[in-house]
């Protein structure tokens, strides 16, 4: 029986920029930042109130898991905003929206009333999009 998710991946185009976005703008915490040799880096962050879920900020780069063609295809798709990577939740969407906007986070959709609460959509620094939701209690 599967019990939990411990790791998940967000594919990013620049790990330094992703670090700044996820840590300094979204307020995530760095869980692991380990050098893996030859410029490779294992970088994981956790949502502020979910320290057991590691989100790997996985660099799309040639070598290891990706060949040159895959890198080109993935880079194009990520930049195009093809991938919806996750749904994040917050206690108060309007406040979180105002705060993230003031930090320069780009929103595709402003807070909108949905049947389950409120939702907005934002983009990370690579082009991945996320839902940011406030769920009715």
């Amino acid at each position, binding site marked *: 029986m599967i019990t939990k998710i411990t*790791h998940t991946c967000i594919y990013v185009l620049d790990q330094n920029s992703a670090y700044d976005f996820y840590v300094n703008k979204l307020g995530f915490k760095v869980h*692991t*930042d*380990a*050098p*893996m*040799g030859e410029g*490779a880096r*294992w970088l994981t962050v956790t949502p502020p109130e979910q320290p057991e879920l590691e989100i*790997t900020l996985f660099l799309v780069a040639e*070598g*290891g*898991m990706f060949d040159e063609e895959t890198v080109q295809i993935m880079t194009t798709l990520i930049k195009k905003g093809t991938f919806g990577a996750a749904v994040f939740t917050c*206690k*108060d969407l*309007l*406040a979180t929206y*105002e*705060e993230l906007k*003031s930090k320069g986070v780009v929103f595709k959709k402003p807070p909108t009333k949905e049947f389950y609460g409120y939702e907005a959509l934002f983009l990370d620094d690579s082009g991945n999009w996320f839902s940011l939701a406030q769920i009715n209690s």
Partner: protein
Amino acid sequence: MEQYEKIYLYKRIVKAKLFIDDHYAENIDLGNICDQANFSRFHFIRLFKSIYGSTPNNYLIKTRMEKAKILLAKGHSVLETSIMVGFDSPTSFAGMFKRIAGQTPSSFQKKQHAQKNAMQLNPLLFVPNCFAENNGWTK
């Protein structure tokens, strides 16, 4: 119209929260924070708590402790850290840190230092093997 008023109100509370985020290292108090939001003290505390789940003062303490953890992990001394997060005295800083984090600043720092060393010396301990193998990091 009501919606615009609500947005305006949110902007003011968020402004106050960001003021704490930016000025936690300075000698700020509730008066400074209320000034940022242009609210009466009572109204401000009530609204801030309803949005962020803690009073502005508790949020300031929490922010200072979170920043202190980052500074200690980077190797700053307890004294340096206490000053850098806005405390006048390292003793009161250490007391508050222990109350919030459940351990002394120096004990926290030792654990962080040990983990950082392990990460540098044997990073594979921190990576699920499937990713390590697929990336050729185990060779």
